[in-house]
């Protein structure tokens, strides 16, 4: 791995079975993507934020070391003190401020380009080819279609013949991305150069009441600042699982304000934001805990302001 890798895969997670079978999905994605990057000769790193790791369960980092040891030299781990959870959330039902966690890595990643994604996303061949050619330009947000894989596939034997067989897709909901935002499963694939990501100050961390919609809100914010958005023409694959948003949505359709991911009716598709300069827990004291792993200690000075309303706009 070079001093500045070409690509950083920004992911977040927590070993608490979030969303069901979390560890299995997480390890599968790390293994699959790491192997593909190696095959295609893509200089990569995984910038993973482990939010609020508990003492009763092993760190995800240790699980990766056991399951995919070859990926460990390419891992940079950011462990966020559990004490940040309560003061950072404005919605007690949100157990996991996913995008604030992603901002922690976006702020600190040192690769040229960042692929911000989720824990159960497998990269597609066309995207790999573009990354291998290194033909991505700065100042452009790149998007890709997501295909949802049906549940019950043998996720230990994932290969192209299985991933590229449309009979294994459970939905065509995101079969086409439409301009100008090219949104749809945005949280699974946003690629942008790290410099522009930092100029935009990452995802909205002022409206900390929902996880849902924060990804498309990032596109709205970028679009309002004239950052072009393009479709790579490639796809990524999402491992179907119990407890996914698509399933959970049905359970909360009568009371969306009670949903554990926040009320999806907020103004994500129109409001813009300007995160404070300390976005991404910039003021959190950092402490190396082992090679490639940094612990972010709790400090009230790092906690985002409660209600900087003037930083929300249209």
């Amino acid at each position, binding site marked *: 791995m070079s001093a500045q890798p070409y690509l950083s895969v920004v992911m977040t997670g927590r070993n608490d079975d979030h969303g069901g079978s979390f560890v299995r999905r997480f390890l599968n994605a790390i293994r699959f993507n790491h192997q593909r990057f190696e095959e295609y000769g893509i200089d990569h790193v995984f910038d993973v934020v482990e939010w609020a790791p508990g003492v009763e369960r092993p760190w995800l980092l240790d699980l990766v070391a056991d399951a995919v040891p070859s990926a460990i030299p390419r891992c940079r781990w950011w462990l966020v003190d559990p004490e940040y959870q309560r003061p950072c959330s404005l919605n007690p039902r949100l157990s996991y401020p996913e995008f604030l966690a992603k901002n922690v890595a976006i702020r600190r990643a040192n690769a040229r380009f960042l692929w911000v994604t989720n824990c159960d996303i497998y990269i597609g061949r066309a995207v790999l080819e573009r990354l291998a050619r290194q033909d991505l330009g700065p100042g452009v947000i790149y998007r890709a279609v997501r295909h949802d894989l049906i549940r019950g596939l043998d996720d230990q034997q994932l290969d192209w013949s299985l991933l590229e067989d449309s009979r294994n897709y459970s939905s065509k909901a995101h079969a086409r991305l439409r301009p100008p935002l090219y949104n749809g499963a945005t949280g699974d694939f946003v690629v942008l150069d790290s410099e522009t990501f930092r100029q935009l100050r990452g995802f909205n961390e002022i409206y*900390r009441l929902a996880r849902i919609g924060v990804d498309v809100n990032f596109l709205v914010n970028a679009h309002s600042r004239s950052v072009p958005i393009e479709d790579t023409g490639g796809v990524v694959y999402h491992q179907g699982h119990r407890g996914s948003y698509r399933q959970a949505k049905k359970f909360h359709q009568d009371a969306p304000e009670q949903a554990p991911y926040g009320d999806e009716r907020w103004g994500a598709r129109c409001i813009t934001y300007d995160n404070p300069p300390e976005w991404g827990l910039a003021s959190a004291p950092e402490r190396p805990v082992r090679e490639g792993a940094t612990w972010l200690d709790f400090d009230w000075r790092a906690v985002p302001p409660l209600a900087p309303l003037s930083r929300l706009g249209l």
Partner: protein
Amino acid sequence: MRRFFSRLLEAFGLVRLARLEAAERDLHLAQRRAAKLEQVLAQTRASAEEAEKRYREDIETARQKFTERMTSMKTTIEQASRAQTLSDNQLALVESKLDVIEGAIQALDQRTRDVLIARTTEASDVKS
């Protein structure tokens, strides 16, 4: 006798002078009628052409007015639509800010309660 004489003239392709004069009068009358009819026809044609021209002009005027009105209505609708989108967005922004304020108040309330509960617990521990 007159009938015989008439038949004799017919045999040579001739008619009596009185009959010839009557036929000429009829012809002249028919020609005058035809000329008059032609005149009426010309007038009617001119009138029809005039009516058609006026009709086309009326249609064109109506079409122009309709187009202008449609353009004006379309502009009004577009302006209204933009205004509505802007109001919707403003409303969404205000609601989002209210959400943030509500969340902040709840968070502050919880933090205050945590501190006060801790103090109360400490005080009761000291008393006991």
